[in-house]
């Protein structure tokens, strides 16, 4: 799973609509179990937030962002959850905190995941963009800028190499 699999380039500096959610959004709510029979990003994307927020999938546009509260992506390990958001067109996720496996899956997939304590200042529908290198979220609607936690060096290195797959191919000499 790479940018190419998502069918588009990810550019987080380009403003997009913020879709905001609360605390403890678990992966069952991101992609309900009954849709896990598919691994296809586009098909999963059609069912992202299917039960929690049915208007999301039909209206989300490429380059939009998801904004969560605390503990975003908790529960099951299903990588279908971040993949469904990539498939739906999401270019990045900002949350006050992430559950461990979801955060890890984001790093491994090359899906930008930013921890931002002020994420709750973003309103649904705001235009935002992410500055990954600076560790910042820009809210164009509110004309505000929020600090985000920079990635630890080990993880930034993984992301810079394009995620875990390219990293592993380099290790195995199968590039």
């Amino acid at each position: 799973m790479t940018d190419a699999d998502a069918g588009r380039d990810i550019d987080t500096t380009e403003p997009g609509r913020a879709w905001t959610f609360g605390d403890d959004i678990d992966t069952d709510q991101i992609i309900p179990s009954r849709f896990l029979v598919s691994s296809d990003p586009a098909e999963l994307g059609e069912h992202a937030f299917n039960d929690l927020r049915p208007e999301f999938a039909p209206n989300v546009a490429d380059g939009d962002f998801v904004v969560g509260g605390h503990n975003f992506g908790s529960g099951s390990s299903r990588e279908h959850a971040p993949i469904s958001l990539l498939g739906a067109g999401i270019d990045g996720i900002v949350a006050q905190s992430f559950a461990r496996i979801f955060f890890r899956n984001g790093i491994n997939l090359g899906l930008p995941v930013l921890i931002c304590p002020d994420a709750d200042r973003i309103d649904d529908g705001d235009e935002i963009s992410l500055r990954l290198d600076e560790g910042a979220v820009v809210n164009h609607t509110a004309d505000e800028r929020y600090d985000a936690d920079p990635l630890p060096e080990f993880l930034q290195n993984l992301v810079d190499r394009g995620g875990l797959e390219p990293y592993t191919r380099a290790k195995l000499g199968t590039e």
Partner: protein
Amino acid sequence: MTGKTISEKLLSEKSGDDVRAGDYVEAAVDVMMTHDVTGPLTFEVFEDVTGDDPELVDPDNTVITIDHHAPADGVKAANNHNIVREFADEYGAQQYDVGDGICHQVLVEEGFVSPGDLVIGADSHSTTFGGVGGFGTGVGSTDLGTTLATGELWFRVPETLRFEVEGDLPDGVYAKDLILKFIGDVGFDGCTYKTAEYGGSAVEALPIHERLVLSNMAIEMGGKAGIVAPDERTVDFLEAQTGERPAIPAYTQPDDDADYEAVHTYQAESLSPQVSTPSNPENAVPVDEVVGTEIDQLFVGTCTNGRYEDIRIVADVIEGERLAPGTRMVVVPASRSVYKQMMDTGVMETFVDAGAIVQSAGCGSCFGTHQGVLGDGDVCLATANRNFPGREGSMESEVYLASPATVGVSALYGEITDPREVELNRYDDYVLEGVGA
């Protein structure tokens, strides 16, 4: 310099570096597991990274189960099952088919996990393996697919929360009640990125099937792992399963002066049966706060509480009785071996006579795909691990989580009932030997 936790010692051992909480390592993985839901994605990653010469680095310790949509609930699921079978056949992985059991139970029963093993599973409840002294942790399909090819994976060495329970558990209080209490106390994300270490005399006294419950639900407080330091009881259990008695490596024992982020201490005698109310496991309350809540469905099973000893407690309570009018009970054993034990000991007949439904081993009802999905307005009391909105079906349904004893007793009344109302049994592992046979 203070001492080390189990996680710090084990990840130092597996990485060859002397590491502490907060360090990043690449560590050698001993056992890798995936299943019919996370498997197909995992296989894509594996084949992407291995290029022209795909080969599993350790086929004997690569385990793939068909348990989540088992038996298949539709054509897509059935096709995924075939993908699993073909992959296992082509690369020589250890494959378990429909009805064999839930991944975590199969790995424990079949002796794949020994004390000190680093185990990754593309399933969040892979924390279960801490119940037999392994460092088990859930990962995504990209993690697993790459590790199948390399045998190693990156980890951040976690901080550790220690949970100590001293004394003797009172009647009606089981490991499930302990873990619901812990989750309620630290919160749904209270252990995120961290390991839960469980100890104290009450934990040491727990049989393995109960320790597995504590480890299994560590993820419900965000835990990366949930570990009970292995002891003689652990290796007795594993020897009985496999005929081989594994060693207890020194690195599975924490130092007395280990540097814990926090230590939560409980006196066993002061604890009571717990129920987690909808729609988050952290909503744990003493059972008396929810007594009288009307129930439509009772669910007995899952990787948390679907072992024979759990099911037997429910059977003892309802033996010779009928389920309360207006209720239904779905029973799903955690493995074929549990299913067989239920048959051999007459437990199957008890459930059928009481009006319950007994299904083949799998994950079905727990994750809301088939085998007992809830409708709008339905209220379920379950031995499961999650009660998120819509987890077992409709977003308008509600799930309460409790121990097998609480579920069994409540089945007789059709409402949440304090399990201490009746005399309850407590089972050690392998209680079945000689029972009813």
